[in-house]
């Protein structure tokens, strides 16, 4: 299979994720979209790794996954604590830190 197919799929996934982050108000959905973007990048890593016959790209994927897991833990904790104080997970509601 040609590399361009993988890249096209990854670009599509990334664009969907990016659009979601910009347009959705629900923090949890935004979070999922970020995961989508990360996985789009992972896909390009693996594709290029296969094309070049090298493993370093796949190692990169593990790093991204580890970071994504850590980010999910921290991010969800933030969302929960924000929810506890504001009873909302909508992003515009949490702008009171602005001066």
């Amino acid at each position, binding site marked *: 299979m040609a590399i361009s197919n993988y890249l096209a799929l990854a670009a599509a996934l990334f664009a969907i994720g*990016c659009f979601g*982050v*910009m*347009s959705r*108000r629900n923090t949890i959905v*935004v979070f999922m979209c970020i995961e989508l973007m990360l996985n789009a990048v992972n896909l390009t890593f693996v594709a290029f790794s296969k094309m070049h016959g090298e493993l370093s790209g796949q190692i990169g994927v593990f790093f991204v996954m580890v970071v994504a897991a850590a980010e999910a833990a921290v991010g969800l904790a933030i969302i929960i604590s924000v929810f506890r104080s504001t009873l909302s997970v909508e*992003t*515009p509601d*949490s*702008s*009171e*830190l*602005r*001066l």
Partner: protein
Amino acid sequence: MMSVDTNLALVPLLPLVGSLAAFLVGLKARNLSGWIASLASIASFGVVLSLFGKLGHGATFEYNLFNWFSVGDLSVDFMLRFDALTAVMCLVITGVGSLIHLYSVAYMHEDESKHRFFSYLNLFLFSMLILVLGGNLLVLFIGWEGVGLCSYLLIGFWFKNLAYAAAGRKAFVVNRIGDAGFLLAIFMVSQWFGTIDFVELAQKIGAIDNMQSYIPVLTIIGICLFVGAAGKSAQIPLYVWLPDAMAGPTPVSALIHAATMVTAGVYMMARANFIFEHAPYAMAIVIVISVLTAFIAGTTALTQNDIKKVLAYSTVSQLGFMFMAAGSGAYWVAIFHVVTHAFFKACLFLGAGSVIHGCHHEQDMRHMGGLAKLMPITFVTYLLSTLAIAGIAPFSGYWSKHAIVAALGSNTNPYLVGVLEIAVVLASITAVVTAFYMTRSLAMTFFGEYRGHEHPHESPILMTAPLVILAGLATVAGYYGGDLAHYLEGVLPKGPYFHKESIGEALSHSWTAIAGVLAALVLYTKLREIPGKIYKALAPIGNLLTNKYYLDEIFGALIVRPLEGLARLLWIKVDQGIVDGTVNGTAAVVDVSGEVVRSFQTGQIRTYMVLMFLGMVALMALYLAL
């Protein structure tokens, strides 16, 4: 012959330690501070005496404390040097200083912050001793600035009176003008001769082959040095601070503004004689200024009614006499007058202090009178000192003043041709005027009926004893003129010979002074209405004298007010406009731009995301385009 003597450091160190101790102990026990300060002063006097005893003829003691700094070829040591000239000055400073310290213990008895007073007084002694012991121009300059500081602190000692504080400030500012001249001279000396040490400098200047080409430089240096001396020693046009300096306590006036500090300029000129020797033009300026100063200050003293103001103008006038001698190259005569003047003027000031003390802080002579019976010791000492300053043989003032007029008369400065005769006449008139105004103050204070409303009383023995000692010295010091001349040989140029006349001869030579004394005595005791009539008849002159030749007003119009205007301009336009404007403008720019940038900061995560996305797209586009 030079030898090292570490005791030299003790001379200034004792008053320095005394200054600290007097203050710190005085915080707890006010009455001890005066005794501590006196003790330090007397101890210093003792060390000076022992050094004086050990010092052979023409010998010098040196003590190099440390190398202060060296820059390029210029190396400056913190060098103390004790030669015959320094010995004479040190003896006067610590000797008269000790007497004045003891006097002050009684005089300042009731003052609440006397620990401060005695601390300053000792600090002054320290600075003054550094000034005369300094082996090079910079160490001398430390002392020079130190005495200026102490003078400022002590003039404004009663700083709660704003006029007194202003007088201190005036003295400080006027002195700065002179100091600027002195500093310029030091810079030029180091620039041209590569050393500022007095001994090395004298050798270098003595070894110059083509002196003709150095004369302009030496002349400018000499003039700058004299500007410094004119500031410290109250010569025209910088003398205006000294009469105001009478705001300080009277012992301060005696010590600083009569006996020691104001003679620093004369000392400095004598010390730098090897420069002035080759600067006849500068010497001519010294003569003109000093004669004018002596005359103007002397005549101003005629109409003053404040007893301390009379003495202040008299001091300015006598300093003029000292510079006449120094300007004529008769340095030992100048130092001779410094010494005799220190005795009789310190005695007069302390006498005035005793009178002020006895009359409960009355200084106006119109409210005194008849004190001769009430304060006999003060009266006799004041009388002796008056005769001394009037220049009547056999008292000391006669010998020094006659030597000065003789030196002035035999001046051969080519720049003074035609001027010298006028100078001699003015100096002689001033000498008579001196006799007149001093007798006037004597008569107004001690003769006739008491015109005040207090109950004058004689001062305690602690105050009268220094008076007696100083009056005794003022009486006999004149006989030692020849010894002094011999003693100072080798340090100072030889100068004129001291004429030791018999009493009869001397008396016949002092007839003008005697006439002045008698005239004043008659006018201010028997014919008391006459002076007022003379004053009315000569109203323009009288007003001129009462208003001190309008010098303060002239300075105000010519210098102070333009400077004030300039300061106001700099303050409002430059400081508030440009400097503050720049600072405030910077803040305003940040403020406004912050307001603008602030609107991007919405707090909406989605907005940030969009901006981030757009930024990333832009960066990528840039990357692809390149």
